[in-house]
């Protein structure tokens, strides 16, 4: 995994980390310049999983391009689809029925919990503890089973369409989600005992990879990475979409900006997601699950932008339309790309073991960065 490619004239060592990783980071290739054991420079080389999604979308119609975005950040696939559907609805001025809005938000929050669960397991595995990974997957399995019953797929659910959702909820949905919430609450204490309170985990994560508030803003970080440094940037509060302005939840802010703060932010966000689901689950209004739209969608000429809060940060969908059935240009502003740019600043001067901990706390999904 690590090989030496050369020495610069000052006696520094250049090594490669990746692109194959033992942990679930994906194909990230970092070229690190070391002086002894201290890191001097970190350069990410991207593009190993570039599939030209944005170019592909130029030949697909507005109904068809949504499924491709599931594969961008595959851990928050519902949220990606939601963003695209919202952008198209913005262009066409479609009114989404209340029932569809409730369903969309519940699915979003379930996806957020599933994504944070996988991050938790992968981060513990990076630090050397192999057991929390399996426990995290047990919880995630419950969520994907719920998704499978309603949407039909477990990872890349193509469930949101412009105008609402694709199909009616499965009759067992509410019962299953209630059961999941009960189960989850009892497991949360275990997570704290096994990982958060453990003195070894705390020592590995505290004061590692500190990102100050000004740096977080200047690098364009968003999501839990920025919130751990004290930046108030939750899109669900600042630019609410669907019914986020009607639910009550807290925006989790920590101020230290180290890996442990990022860890705590994500853990508490999981609890807030459960809170949101509990508020909405009981009173999903009756009605249509999809607004009536024309068979062929044509956005008027112009530019449309929509931002949502994925599990990683702010995802932006920017559609330029020339009035036809296919978009002229689509651009996705991915959260991972900006978060990754802060990595070098965070780990300068630390050892390689700390690089792994800091990278784990950033929660990178490489297909999201490379698209």
């Amino acid at each position, binding site marked *: 995994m690590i090989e030496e490619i050369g020495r610069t004239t000052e006696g520094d060592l250049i090594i490669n980390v990746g692109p194959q990783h033992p942990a679930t980071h994906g194909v990230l290739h970092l070229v690190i310049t070391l002086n002894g054991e201290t890191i001097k420079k970190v350069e990410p080389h991207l593009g190993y999983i570039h599939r030209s999604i944005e170019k592909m979308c130029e030949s697909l119609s507005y109904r068809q391009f949504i*499924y491709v975005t599931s594969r961008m950040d595959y851990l928050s696939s519902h949220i990606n689809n939601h963003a695209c559907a919202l952008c198209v609805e913005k262009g066409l001025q479609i009114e989404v029925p209340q029932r569809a809005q409730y369903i969309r938000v519940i699915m979003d929050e379930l996806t957020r919990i599933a994504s944070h669960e996988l991050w938790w397991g992968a981060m513990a595995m990076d630090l050397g503890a192999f057991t929390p990974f399996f426990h995290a997957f047990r919880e995630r399995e419950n969520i994907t089973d719920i998704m499978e019953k309603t949407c039909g797929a477990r990872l890349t659910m193509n469930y949101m369409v412009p105008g609402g959702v694709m199909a009616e909820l499965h009759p067992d949905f509410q019962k299953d989600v209630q059961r999941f919430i009960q189960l989850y609450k009892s497991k949360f204490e275990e997570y704290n005992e096994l990982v958060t309170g*453990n*003195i*070894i985990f705390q020592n590995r994560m505290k004061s590692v990879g500190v990102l100050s508030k000004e740096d977080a803003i200047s690098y364009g970080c968003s999501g839990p990475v920025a919130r751990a440094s004290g930046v108030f940037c939750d899109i669900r509060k600042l630019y609410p979409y669907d019914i986020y302005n009607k639910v009550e939840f807290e925006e989790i802010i920590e101020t230290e900006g180290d890996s442990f703060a990022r860890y705590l932010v994500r853990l508490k966000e999981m609890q807030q997601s459960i809170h949101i689901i509990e508020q909405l689950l009981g009173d999903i209004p009756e009605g249509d699950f999809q607004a009536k739209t024309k068979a062929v969608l044509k956005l008027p000429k112009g530019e449309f932008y929509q931002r949502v809060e994925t599990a990683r940060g702010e995802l932006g969908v920017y559609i330029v339309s020339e009035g036809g059935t296919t978009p002229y240009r689509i651009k996705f502003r991915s959260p991972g790309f900006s978060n990754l740019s802060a990595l070098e600043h965070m780990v300068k001067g630390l050892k390689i073991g700390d690089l792994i901990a800091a990278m784990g706390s950033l929660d990178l999904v490489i297909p999201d960065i490379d698209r």
Partner: protein
Amino acid sequence: MFLKDYIKDVYGAIRSVLKGMRVTGYYFTHHKEIITEQYPDNRETLKLAERFRGEVVLLHDEKNEHACTGCSACEIACPNGTIKIINKFDISPDGKKKKAIDTFVYHLELCTMCNLCIEACPTDAIKMAQTFEHSVFDRSKLTKKLNNEGSKLREGIE
């Protein structure tokens, strides 16, 4: 003072360590928590969700009739050219030429199971089956013809 902090450190560390061990010890002693599905052995009892997106199939009833009129709505809705409808012209009993479906070509190797074709079909002729074991040794087996031999369109469907 230093001694007090030192002892507090040690005590706190040991307590957190023991708490963590209690969690794994609990899982070691409770074997009922094991959730592994013994996959190849449980094929008979495995039940997938009914909306599970396995592969596209054309529904045939007992009289070997299907509901596909050959309108190509699914072919147009598919984002990556997985479906190809080949039509032929039947001569109906009163001498009129009617369009009917000759072959429904389905490329399983290209399908992304996005469900757009099922949504687009006006007569509910196709649905997603619950098979998931698609691997074959020969790639040409993945290009399937979905309408059975000798099947024809059910009466009364437009």
